[in-house]
C-alpha cells in the first residue's frame, strides 16, 4: 500500500465541478507535480487532501488510515504538512515563533504550565526551540529567527513557511506554488532545497507549480489537470509529448 492514496475524489461547488475523479498514489521519497492552467482545480485538490474541504466522493488514505472525513488539524497531526499559494505566516509573531506554532500542538505541558513557568514548561519550550531552530537551519533561515516575517523578502518568507510545515513532521508535504513571485535565483535555490529535503527527510512531496521548468526538472511523476479533469499522468517526458497536454497549454492546431 502506498504512503498516500487518493482514490477517485470529486468536489463540486454548486454547479462548478472543481475536481472530477482525481486519483494519485505517492510513496516516500517521491515528488509529484500537479500542473494545469488557472482554475484547473489544483489548489482544491490540496484543500481536499489536507482537509480544508471534504470530498463529495472518493477517499484519501494516509499510511493506510482513512482521513477523508477527518478534521483538518487532526489530518495535520497524522502527518500532512502544507504551504499556501499566498503565503500565510502569522502576523504578530517572529519567524521562530511562527515555526514554534507548528510545534506547540505536540508540546507536552498542560494548562498549569500555560499559566505558570513550571519546570516541565521550561524544558518543553527549550526542546521546541531546538527542533524549530534545526528546521530553520535546514531551510537556511536560522539567522532571521528573531525577525518579523512581514519584514522579509518573499523568497525568505517561503522558506519560513516550509520550515513551519516541516515542524509538523509530515509524511506528506504539499507545496502550493512555492515558486510564485520568486526571482530566477530564488527559484533555483528553492528547487535545490526541495530536492534536498526530499532525499534527506524522505517524505512524499506534492507540488503545484506554474513554472514548468521547475516541475519538469524535479518531479518523478506529473499529473496534468484541466477544467477539473486529469488529462494526463506520467513521467515528465511522457507528459511533454502528450497531445492533449500540448493542446491544453498551447491550443489546438487548426
Amino acid at each position, binding site marked *: 500500500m502506498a504512503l498516500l492514496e487518493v482514490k477517485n475524489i470529486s468536489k463540486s461547488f454548486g454547479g462548478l465541478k472543481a475536481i472530477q475523479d482525481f486519483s494519485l498514489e505517492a510513496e516516500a521519497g517521491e515528488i509529484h507535480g500537479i500542473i494545469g492552467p488557472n482554475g484547473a482545480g489544483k489548489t482544491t485538490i490540496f484543500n481536499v487532501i489536507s*482537509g480544508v474541504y471534504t470530498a463529495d466522493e472518493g477517499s484519501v488514505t494516509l499510511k493506510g488510515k482513512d482521513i477523508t472525513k477527518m478534521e483538518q488539524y487532526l489530518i495535520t497531526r497524522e502527518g500532512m504538512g502544507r504551504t499556501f499559494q499566498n503565503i500565510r505566516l502569522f502576523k504578530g509573531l517572529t519567524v521562530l515563533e511562527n515555526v514554534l506554532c*507548528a510545534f506547540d500542538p505536540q508540546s507536552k505541558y498542560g494548562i498549569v504550565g500555560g499559566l505558570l513557568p513550571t519546570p516541565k514548561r521550561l524544558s518543553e519550550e527549550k526542546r*521546541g526551540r531546538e527542533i524549530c531552530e534545526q528546521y530553520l537551519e535546514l531551510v537556511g533561515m536560522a539567522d532571521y529567527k528573531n525577525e518579523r516575517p512581514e519584514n522579509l523578502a518573499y523568497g525568505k518568507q517561503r522558506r519560513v513557511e516550509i520550515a513551519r510545515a516541516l515542524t509538523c513532521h509530515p509524511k506528506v508535504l504539499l507545496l502550493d506554488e512555492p515558486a510564485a513571485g520568486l526571482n530566477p535565483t530564488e527559484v533555483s535555490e528553492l528547487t535545490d532545497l526541495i530536492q534536498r529535503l526530499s532525499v534527506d527527510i524522505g517524505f512524499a512531496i506534492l507540488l503545484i507549480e506554474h513554472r514548468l521548468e521547475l516541475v519538469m526538472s524535479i518531479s518523478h511523476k506529473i499529473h496534468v489537470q484541466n477544467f477539473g479533469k486529469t488529462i494526463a499522468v506520467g513521467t515528465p517526458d511522457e507528459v511533454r509529448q502528450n497531445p492533449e497536454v500540448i493542446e491544453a497549454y498551447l491550443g489546438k492546431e487548426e
Partner: protein
Amino acid sequence: MTLYLSILTQILITVVAVCGVYVLTGLTGMFSLGQAAFMAVGSYASGILVVKCGFPFWLACILAVLIAVVIGYLVGFPTVRLRRDYISLVTLGFGEAITALLNRATKLTGGASGFIGIPRKTTFLLALVSAIAAIAIVSWFKTSKYGRQCIAVRGDELAAKAMGINVPKIKMNAFLLSVAVTAFSGCLYAFFITYVDPTIFGWKKSADWVIMVFFGGVNSLTGSVVGAFILSGLPEVLRSLDQYRSIIYAILVLLIINFKPSGIFGEWELSPRNLKALGEKLAKRSRKEEKTDGAA
C-alpha cells in the same frame, strides 16, 4: 480608607478585569460584549455565598470563579465555533440576559434595588496583590504555547488548523481564562463597594473594557494595563466630567483609530530585555543628535 486609596483600589480592580479582556480581545481577537456579566456572576455568587450561606470570603471567591467558569463553558461551547462577528452578538445577548435575570430573581439577588450587606473585605493591599497576580498569570499565558497559538488563531485560522492547532479548543481556553479573571475582579468589586446592583454590569461596561484594551495597544498587555489605569482613573480624577465620560471615550477612540491604530504601546511589552533595547535606542538617538549638533 482615604479617598485616593479608595480610587486606586477601584482602578486596580478594573485592571484585573481588563487583564481578562486582554486575553480574549487582544490575544485571541474575540470581542465579548457580555464580559461584564461574568463580573456580575463573580460579584453576586461570592456575595450570596458569604451573606446568605455564611462561607468564608476566600472560599466564596474560589467557588464564584468556578461557577463563572462553568457558565463560561456553557456559553463558550457553541460560541467559539462561530464566526468572529457572531461571538460579539452571542455574548451581548448573554450579558443582557444575565442582568435581566439578576433583576428578576428578587429573592436571591435583591432585584433592581441591589444586593446589600456584603462585608468589606477587599483592601488596597489585596487589590494590589490581585492585580499583580493577574498581570503575571496573563503574561505567562501570553508567552506560553497557548498564548502563541492564540496569536496564530487571531492571525489566520485556516493556516492555524493546517499546523495542527485545534482552533475551537484554543479559543475556549482563552475564553475560560478571561472569564475566570473577570469573575475574580467581580469578587473584589463586591467586597469593596459592599453593594451591587444589576445596572452596573451592562454591555456598556464590557465596551469600556474593550476600549481600554484598544487604547493601550491591542497586542500589548502592558498597553492594556496602562489603558485601564488611565481610562478608569480619568473619570475619578475629573469627577465633574463624569457625565461626559462616554463623549471623552468616543473622542479618544476616534483619535486612536486615526493616528495610532495599534494603540499607544502597539506590540511593545514591558520586560527587562525590551527596556534595555529601548534604552540603547534612545542613547543612540541622543548620540546622533550630539553629532549633528557638533557638525552644525
